[in-house]
């Protein structure tokens, strides 16, 4: 009995940080999965709405939280969609890592001069470029794939701005609320 009690006492402590990360990650995963159900007019072009959550978390809690939310979303999202460890997952992960890296750089180095818009556009463009390079390098080593670059970068900028507008309006409404 005593051993059992000891075991109970040794449970992992759930911190406030864990709660925040988990709830935002859940939100991002839901958006990620819903978005994957929508057909896209051009293959490879999608709005990446889940990054709105990453942006909000970045601005409210800092880049460590944002990294957790983004990576949890990619991993759990792929488990739900059944693409875990598939080429689609590799592409998704490389895109997420690239956009996280660019967000981290902007956030830590030039935060004073940039707002949501700049970070969002930079994140989505680096997401697109990383995916393109990985696709070219790992899956289709044909220069023809790079012809997609201008199209994808244009879409990346447009959706980057779009996401920033949504994130800004959410941020305005959230002011004063939440933790």
């Amino acid at each position, binding site marked *: 009995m005593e051993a059992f009690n000891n075991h109970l006492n040794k449970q992992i402590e759930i911190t406030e940080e864990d709660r925040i990360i988990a709830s935002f990650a859940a939100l991002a995963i839901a958006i990620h999965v819903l978005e994957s159900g929508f057909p896209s007019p051009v293959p490879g072009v999608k709005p990446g709405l889940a990054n709105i959550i990453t942006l909000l978390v970045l601005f409210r809690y800092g880049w460590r939280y944002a990294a957790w939310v983004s990576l949890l979303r990619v991993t759990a999202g792929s488990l739900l969609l059944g693409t875990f460890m598939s080429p689609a997952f590799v592409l998704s992960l490389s895109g997420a890592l690239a956009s996280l890296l660019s967000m981290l750089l*902007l956030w830590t180095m*030039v935060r*004073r*001069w*940039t*707002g949501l*818009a*700049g*970070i969002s*556009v*930079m994140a989505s*463009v680096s997401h697109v470029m990383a995916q393109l390079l990985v696709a070219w390098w790992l899956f289709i080593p044909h*220069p*023809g794939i*790079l*012809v997609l*670059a*201008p199209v994808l*970068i*244009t879409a*990346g*900028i447009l959706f*980057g*701005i779009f996401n920033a507008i949504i994130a800004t309006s959410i941020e305005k409404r959230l002011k004063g609320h939440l933790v």
Partner: protein
Amino acid sequence: MKNGDWLILLFCLSLIPLSWLMTKRQPGTTTAIEITISDKPAVVYSIKVNQQIKVTGQLGDSVIEILEGRVRFSESPCSSKVCILSGWHQDSGDHVVCLPNKVGISLISQQDRFDGINF
């Protein structure tokens, strides 16, 4: 929008023409064409020999004409005739495909290719 946002936007916008210029194909000299029918392995023809090649695709016979280093579809059983209307092609790296008849032509350049690698 802060100043940095505009700067980032400008930088990303400049990537569009840049990536377009970088990926623009440099047309090389075509030395041969590859004709692919359905899923069968491609057959290579020299572009230097003027000839008319009749191939049988999904719908019927397509005629591919090679003339003075250029290639075109001259006859096709498909209804849209997109393949014929696309005209003559001479740049290496180009592809002409008649999707209805499942006949594809790839213009290839065999220069600078290894013909054997030893370890």
